[in-house]
């Protein structure tokens, strides 16, 4: 394996998997709620799985503007 995820131990992959779910899943409250992760330190999340989540959030925020 050659990608950045391949170098991670299983425990860290589990953490990323959980972070992916926290950012991408869970019930969405419509109406007056806003979803924002502005200010979240995502530097360490430079991995594809998490980037997918971040991109989803960015797209959602762009749509609601």
């Amino acid at each position, binding site marked *: *394996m*050659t*990608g*950045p*995820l*391949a170098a991670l131990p*299983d425990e860290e*992959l*589990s*953490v990323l*998997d*959980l*972070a*992916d*779910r*926290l*950012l*991408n*899943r*869970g*019930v*969405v*409250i*419509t*109406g*007056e*709620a*806003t*979803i*924002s*992760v*502005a*200010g*979240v*330190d995502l530097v*360490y*999340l430079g991995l*594809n*799985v998490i*980037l*997918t989540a971040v991109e989803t*959030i960015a797209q959602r925020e762009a749509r609601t503007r």
Partner: protein
Amino acid sequence: MTRLFAHAITRRATGGPLVGLRGKPLEQITGGELGLWATRWDGEPTLSRDDAFAHHDLVAVLCEAGPCLPVRFGTWLSDAGAVRRSLDADQERFTSAIDRLADRREVAVTLLWRDPSAVRPGPALPDPAGPRSTGRAFLERRRTAHATTDHRRREAEAIAVRLRRELGIGQPDVRHESCPSAEVALTMSLLARTDEADALKARATAAVAAIAGVRGVVSGPWPPYSFTEELERGHGG
């Protein structure tokens, strides 16, 4: 400025922890038969990685206490009135989801390709007379890339079907995504009764270990983050 950072929705009578993120006050704001648990947050919010996992810990405690609907991380409401209006507006949807997820946990499966750069090109195009043009080379590269992606996606879908069959899980209790990135073959979420979740995790761990060409990691059990919304009609999930 004070705002409310949402964690989970429960029945209004459900107990919970007393302290929210970073030691801030945790409140249950009720609307109808439901209550939304939220951290009261003064000042400009700057969330961190630790906040995300503290949110997870809070949701896990709430889900231990009773039927619970995890709220997506990063959800803010302006005040208790906004919470009540949101709960009232979606009372039926939330109640249905809480009932569906009562005493359920999620087991997560992630499969990484062992060789994400492997290329399986399609049949070669007929070679025209004369030197190969730049345009033709571009088209061939693009077709090869598409063929690889399509092959990988079919492979991942076949693995998803195989896993679901081997684990004996019905379609409503599975969510999956094939090839979300170049390295990841499959992410899959499995819903199980709380008292069966550890056994399911063990069976899933054994099942993914037997699949050639991928490295599998099975995680959880967690609160049922991936099952808070109903499957859309016709969605294979």
